[in-house]
């Protein structure tokens, strides 16, 4: 058991280091399926400025999980296999920090009308929320907000950018 814990810690540290090393400019589209490069949450609080990341903070969450972001197909809001893996990982983190509350931001690409996209973003945020709830995360710890097409992470008008913008981002509320 002690050995297992040790391994887990090492794995977590590895992911955290990998996450730092792999930071890329926002403009570069990620290879398909590489969710680890999906955009940063716009609204998440950053960790302390002295470089020490407080466990259970949004910064710690982002470093600890595979990704804070799940992606969706055109006009879709289903949680696919890739998204399940990411959300399983998020659920495990949230289980480790039961005091942590989150909000899930739903987003859409620019190729939809404004109001419909607000509704679509709500669908996506709730799809992620429902999945986490099914994994045992208390719904009372989770809120959702839709930004529609107001807060893209990729600014191009091309398929790669749109794919990155169709997303649900989990943000830890500090």
């Amino acid at each position, binding site marked *: 058991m002690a050995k297992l814990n040790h391994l887990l810690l090492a794995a977590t540290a590895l992911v955290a280091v990998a996450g730092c090393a792999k930071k890329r400019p926002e403009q570069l589209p990620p290879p398909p399926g590489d969710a680890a490069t999906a955009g940063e949450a716009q609204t998440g609080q950053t960790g302390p400025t002295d470089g020490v990341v407080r466990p259970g903070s949004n910064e710690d969450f982002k470093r600890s999980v595979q990704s804070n972001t799940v992606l969706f197909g055109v006009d879709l809001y289903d949680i696919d296999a890739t998204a399940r893996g990411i959300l399983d990982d998020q659920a495990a983190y949230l289980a480790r920090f039961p005091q942590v509350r989150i909000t899930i931001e739903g987003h859409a690409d620019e190729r939809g009308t404004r109001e419909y996209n607000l*509704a679509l973003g709500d669908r996506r945020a709730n799809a992620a929320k429902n999945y986490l709830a099914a994994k045992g995360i208390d719904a009372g710890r989770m809120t959702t907000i839709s930004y529609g097409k107001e807060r893209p992470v990729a600014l191009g008008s091309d398929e790669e950018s749109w794919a990155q913008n169709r997303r649900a981002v989990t943000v830890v509320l500090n």
Partner: protein
Amino acid sequence: MKPLIYCLALLAAPALAQQQPAPAAPPQQGQPLEVSVTGGVSAPMPIAIPAMPAAAVVDTPAGSTDALGRQLADIVANDLRNSGLFSPLSPGRLRPVAFGEVNTPQFDYWGGTGAQALVQGFVRANADGTLTVGCYLFDVFAKTELARQGFVVSPAEWRRAAHKCADAVYSRLTGEGPYFDSRIVYVSETGPKAKRVKRLAIMDQDGANHRFLTNGQSIVLTPRFAPNQQSIVYMSYLGKIPSIYVYDIGSGRQRLVVQNVATTFAPRFSPDGRWILFSQAQAGNTDLYRVPAGGGAPQRLTSSPGIDTGGSYSPDGSRIVFESDRSGGQQLYVMNADGSNQQRISFGGGRYATPVWSPRGDLIAFTRLSGDFRIGVMNASGGGEKILTNSWQDEGPSWSPNGRAITFFRSGRGGAGKADLWMVDLTGQVERRIPTPLDGSDPAWGPLRP
């Protein structure tokens, strides 16, 4: 409330003119002077709009009366030119008009310019601080007066007198309702697209008198005028809780409409101002609701699984057109104002979104998503579809008060792509950008001002 502008019956103005004009000569044989608003390729009507002389040169808070007279004529010309139906003569072909000849034009001169219609007017500073603007429309060939109106305005509202004059000319020559004396509320945009700063802004229909209403700290979207034009309903992310607010134009105060149990958006006033129609997203499902404009308990109008949003009342308030993806993609539906009798009216390829009922009741404007986004209109009962614009992403139509023109916003591609406000007329042939200080989106055209 005292009206800010009122019409004056011009019995024999300019008042200083010593005699009534001679009885008009009998109209010439031939076609009456009129402009077709539906005609396809007819050339714009040449019209002369010389500077409006002042009764006396007086300094006013709006400038000297003689400068005002030139600016008033320019505004009238600009309005009429922008309609696409008129071609104002260039300044070099105009002649100065003496105050005494405002209602007795030099028809022989104007006949030689090629102008078919002539607008003359005058400015007078009144003892009580107001301005009187007289406005006369003549048929140059028939040598007859077609219309005359006078307007009394405060100096701060002097431009409205010109818009009222242009409205009088437009209405008399087209047979259509006026629309130049109106305002547009919209969302001013600036900054990078990933972190766009959005502010409510209001301006006259021609872009003048531009004013920001909110400071940009919260995202604001989709403003709409109240029918009495004293407030604006819109959606804001204030406090990171997307909700509907009413902004009082006079006081600048904002009021939350629905307590935040869920995300509320897409607000619209009913034509009588008593209700606010809106959309509520909850647990991934979006439906239409209405709430008393002064606050109260919301009433649910739709309950389909799916996204029902983008509602718009018919001008008589009895029906609502909205979009729903209940059949798969977004399509347009019409229902009674209480939510009963929901029927689909759009059946073309692609998707239909953002329906807006014409103030005339006959047409519904929409955004059609079929590859590109385009603005179109269809009959209120469905059918008769006509696409008016052709660009990469045109979205969010809003009708002019007379139902003859539509404003919308046009987005460009990529991170540097701009968003601009545009206007298109019902023929689809007259299209132009509305100048704004920054980028703009979500325009909503207000009613004709009283």
